[in-house]
């Protein structure tokens, strides 16, 4: 089933009045349950593409269809709702909320959906158990290692059962062993729960494990 479709995407940034072309005529279709890695050197447009697919930004030209709906015409609030209900995000710098414990960070996404206290706790604990991070439940981000924080971030991203999880260089701050564990985890979630993953990387280890690889070069797909 087709879940994301990008048609002739163009993104031109204005950098102090100077137009910078970041993406040029991108066509892309992602189906439910795919595990896609976007690779390419720095500046090739990976972040820009993920931002567009993640409804965080709008293309200069072209259309993006999410579950068949054109999201390029939607307003701020509608996009926010789509992100909340349908998408999960993992960031390079983990970006957990520093004053909340691991379990509270995971609950946070569910709170935004209005899920009750009790249900939130149960679901968060069950997921943490599944991801093998149960013992981190009451730790704050600054009490956890980078790898541990990123696992919690994965849990936060998938707890609301999103259609797609987008991750911009999720392993860039991790050593290769920890990165490997994180990839195991994401692959496991992909195969067990059929969650679609799209993430970017310029790390060879990650690229080698990609089930589908999209290579970006100067804002174009280079396959």
């Amino acid at each position: 089933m087709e879940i994301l479709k990008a048609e002739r995407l163009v993104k031109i940034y204005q950098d102090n009045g100077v137009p910078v072309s970041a993406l040029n005529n991108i066509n892309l279709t992602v189906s439910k349950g795919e595990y896609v890695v976007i690779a390419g050197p720095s500046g090739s447009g990976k972040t820009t593409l993920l931002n567009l697919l993640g409804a965080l930004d709008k293309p200069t030209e072209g259309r993006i269809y999410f579950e068949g709906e054109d999201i390029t015409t939607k307003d701020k609030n509608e996009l926010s709702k789509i992100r909340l209900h349908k998408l999960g995000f993992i960031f390079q710098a983990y970006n957990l909320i520093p004053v909340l414990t691991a379990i509270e960070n995971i609950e946070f996404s569910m709170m935004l959906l209005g899920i009750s206290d009790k249900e939130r706790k149960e679901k968060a604990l069950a997921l943490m158990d599944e991801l093998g991070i149960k013992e981190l439940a009451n730790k704050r981000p600054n009490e956890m290692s980078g790898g541990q924080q990123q696992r919690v971030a994965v849990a936060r991203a998938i707890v609301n059962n999103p259609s797609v999880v987008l991750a911009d260089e999720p392993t860039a701050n991790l050593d290769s062993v920890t990165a490997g564990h994180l990839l195991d985890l994401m692959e496991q979630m992909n195969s067990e729960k059929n969650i679609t993953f799209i993430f970017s990387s310029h790390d060879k280890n990650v690229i080698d494990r990609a089930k589908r690889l999209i290579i970006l070069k100067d804002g174009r797909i280079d396959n």
Partner: protein
Amino acid sequence: MKLLIKLAWRNIWRNKRRSILTLAAIMFASLLAIAMRGIQLGTYDLNIKNVVELFSGYLQIQEKGYNDNPNLNSSFQVSTNIINALKDTKGVSGFSPRIYADGLISYKDESRGASIFAIEPGAESQVTSFMKNVNKGKFFSSDSSNEIVLGSELLDNLNAKVGDNVIILAQGYDGALENNKFKIVGTVKFGAPGMEAATVIMGIKTAQSLLAMENHVNAIAIKIQNIEQLKKVKFSLAGKIKSSSLSVLSWESINPGLEQLLEFSNVRGIVFLGILFVIVAFGILNTVLMSVTERYREFGVVLSIGMPQIKLAYLIYLETFFITLVGIVLGNISGYILNSYIVHHPIMFGGELKKFYETYHFLPQAQSSVQFSIFINVSISIIFISLLSCIYPAYKVYKLEPLKGIRHT
């Protein structure tokens, strides 16, 4: 919702130093406001009580026009209708007829202007308290004897002593000059030297015969049980008095200068508080704005994962509200302690300040108040201004784009 509250509360303590400074500023502002308002209203009440309970009474019945143009001829008889009206009105706890007249008092070679104040000692002691302020000698007990009491300064100015006889000359009701001999039996002192240099107090019957005004009086001073019922009692009494030439006046009209002076200092106090609150508002605006800009990146992240902007703005409000609330609670507690301390230990003025206050017939002391409305008004005002000063930072957060937040460094 509970998680959001938790988040707000913990966010406050992330930058402990800043939060404590903000909190301390709010606490100090509420303490200052409560202390100032307390002294303002406490001293206000004290002076009203002083003047009103000492002399004027809370209400007076007078002939219409007398208050604006006091003269002996604006007088009336204490009819049974008036007495019944006073007795039938709920909340009236005492009343006392009075005559005010001007005259000249002489002892040997010294003569001084005299403000004659004639009363019925038995009734007057039910209404006002100046009879307790006997300085030398005693107060006369019959309203028809030729015994008088002088302001203590007047006695000194006349070079007379208690027990001496004096002559009082006054223009009577019929226009003719009258005079009579009186015996000084005591002096009174109120802490208002200007007044003490002229006051001559005598019995009401004595005055009526000196001034040839038969059974007429100039005013009936009235004491009421509960100041808060002043308007009600006034209205109900006015309804019962049949005579169209009489009016019932409250203490503000009887003592217009006092009311104006108090009103002026009240307005001045409110203006000062207004300035204080504006300063506090800018302080809060500054800290909230700082704490918001610092967290743009974090906000970008939560916006990315789908937190509605409005909820984020709400979070900012919650944080400010918590700091304000804690500051206000501490400010109220310390304000209550300070105000009750002053209530029990009023500040007494000395030296020049004392003289200044006495010139305006004020007691040379500052009193405070712990009346509930002070705390409520100050707290509501500060909560209001703190929420007001949050509008701009909350608006900035409301307008924040997730990517702008993430990129912000």
